[in-house]
């Protein structure tokens, strides 16, 4: 009998351990500079998607850097500078590779071609009622190229189609604190991050209100400022704590990754995160003037 119990334990123990294991982030290196070896400075945003391209909002230098992602890692980055872009803070790509940049000085979202040519600004057409002014704090793009814009002055998430036409709006939930990021998953569920209360709200596709999704993240984060979602997890970037918290799609805490510091694998005041379709995780490690690259290991 004792031998049977010992045998069962030997078989089951590793399985039990594996059940408790969360996702791992394997470090794949960092992007420090462009092809001319000009270093990145205070990067605020990262954009990635299905094009094997990594875009970095090199905020301190007022430019974007575009890296091609190959098997060996990011290739030397190409600078994108346009006179209309003075202070890029967020950068995203849609399915056709068009680039959208939130400019902090203009408080507008700029539209740039995949080749780095300025096209124009996103002008929300057809906004309802009197609330025609909007100030974007952050934004996300879904699989259908709709834009989800965090409009701070009107306390809502504006949903525009790829041409900038108003589709719908989702009013902020009644809550203390301040909403600083928005993310959309493949099913069209919208997630909203409150930095002060460290809570996340969600709105199903076509919903016009948010519901509480996760409360009480204060136990795990100091001051979260960015959010990303993939098939299995939500990734919450803790700016002040220098880490990333993983949540399951049901909102349960699944671990805290990375720590505060200067070395590779450590973060200082990270400000943005993006996830590509190959398991790549890209973090704008702003305080360390680089973008760190990880691969999700299930």
């Amino acid at each position, binding site marked *: 009998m004792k031998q049977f119990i010992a045998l069962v334990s030997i078989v089951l123990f590793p399985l039990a351990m594996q059940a408790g294991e969360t996702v791992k982030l394997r470090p794949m290196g960092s992007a420090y500079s462009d092809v001319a070896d000009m270093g990145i400075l205070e990067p605020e945003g990262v954009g990635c998607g299905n094009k094997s391209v990594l875009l970095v909002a090199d905020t301190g230098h007022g430019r974007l850097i575009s890296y091609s992602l190959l098997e060996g890692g990011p290739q030397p980055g190409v600078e994108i500078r346009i006179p209309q872009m003075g*202070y890029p803070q967020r950068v995203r790509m849609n399915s056709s590779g068009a680039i959208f940049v939130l400019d902090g000085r203009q408080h507008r979202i700029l539209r740039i071609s995949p080749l780095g040519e300025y096209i124009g600004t996103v002008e929300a057409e057809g906004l309802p009622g009197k609330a025609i002014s909007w100030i974007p704090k952050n934004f996300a793009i879904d699989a259908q190229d709709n834009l989800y814009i965090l409009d701070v*002055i009107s306390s809502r998430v504006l949903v525009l189609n790829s041409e900038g036409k108003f589709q719908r709006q989702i009013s902020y939930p009644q809550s203390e604190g301040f909403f600083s990021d928005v993310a959309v998953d493949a099913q069209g569920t919208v997630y909203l991050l409150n930095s002060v209360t460290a809570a996340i709200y969600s709105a199903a596709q076509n919903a016009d209100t948010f519901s509480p999704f996760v409360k009480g993240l204060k136990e795990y984060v100091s001051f979260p400022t960015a959010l990303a979602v993939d098939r299995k997890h939500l990734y919450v970037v803790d700016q002040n704590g220098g880490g990333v918290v993983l949540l399951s799609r049901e909102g349960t805490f699944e671990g805290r990754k990375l720590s505060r510091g200067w070395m590779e694998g450590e973060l200082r005041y990270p400000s943005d995160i993006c996830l590509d379709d190959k398991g790549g995780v890209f973090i704008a490690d702003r305080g360390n003037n*680089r973008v760190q690259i990880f691969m999700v290991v299930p």
Partner: protein
Amino acid sequence: MKKDRVIVPYWILLLLVASSVCIVGLSAEAQQNKFRLKPGAQGKICLSCHGEFGKKLKQPFVHTPVKAGECSSCHNPHASAYGKMLAAATNKICFTCHTNIVPDQALSTHKPVGEGNCIKCHDPHSAKNKFNLLSAGNELCFGCHAGLADTIKKVKFKHGPVEKSCLNCHSPHASGKSVGLLQEKVPALCLKCHKTETPIFQKQHMNYPVAKALCTSCHDPHGSDKAGMLYANVHQPVAGKMCNQCHEEPGSSKPFATKKSGLDLCKGCHITLVNDALNKNRIHWPVTDKTGCLNCHSPHASKEASLLKTSLTDLCGECHADTIERQKQADTKHPPVQEGLCMSCHAPHASNNLFLIEQASQIELCQTCHDYEKHQTHPLGEKTVDPRNKNVRVTCASCHAAHGTANKHLLYYPTSTELCVQCHMEYDRR
């Protein structure tokens, strides 16, 4: 067959009733006399050793169990796990009898009450003052609220009820009706004394129906040096009695509604400040939301300069609680942080620099207070590359965290050895 009825003699019934009464009485007495003291010995027996206690019994107000000689109501005469031989923990013993001190759903609770620190205000045995209070009247409150005491005594325009007694407005233990231990919410509390229908009152308030508004938005309830008991700093339109500069007319259906909201309202007068902020690279985001300026500023009057709602530590701490907490727990205090002088380093509205720092260079920022070149020669600045990261330069923040750490001198590591070898790895002998 007919059963014989059982007839219980009346004297047996009487005996049974009398016995029941005696048993109940004896149980109650046993409970009170759980230490089985000799008759008449309760209290007296304690005084046979604690003779000096006799003086306490002569005070005008004596705690009921003390008066009844029931020392064992609070103290265990044999042994105790608590100080002063108390029968229960100091912060719980009073509540064994005084169960309703804090109402259910209390909106505010006095800190010593919440901590069970009743003897902060009350003498547990006897006192010269009613309710066994340690001091009479406001003097008791001023023992802790010294700053407020000073204000109340010195202000030019005093609030009568405040001078007479704090308890005219506040509940000493807890309030189920309002924050701040107020007996009623404002303005209901104020309306108990102040008649708002009088012509002079209405004229003073520009005919706005302020009986439905928050009096303490303009008036300092403890008194002030400003006429009308307004707070020390008054918004110009309020001082100029130009309420309709921001609000709808008093006779309108919504007299307190503002003519515009958020930034749009304030930029009517503060256009330069708003434009400066919007033209900078980084804006403090609360400036731009629906509440806008009122996230931080009081629109009418305030004790704080620049019409801030409260002290900067509390105000900034509403959002940046983690940063304020870090300083509280820090081994070495950084004075501008500890003293709530956030604006020594940060621009409150907007800046071109990260974290809304005023200066572009971190070293320049620290140099405004610290003449570091006089006490150290470690290379710093644009030409000094951090060995850990080629994109980072060595600055003050390479070693020190401005908001504090668990280590001395705001250092990231507990010893200089551990700190230095982060960069000078060749000397790491650990």
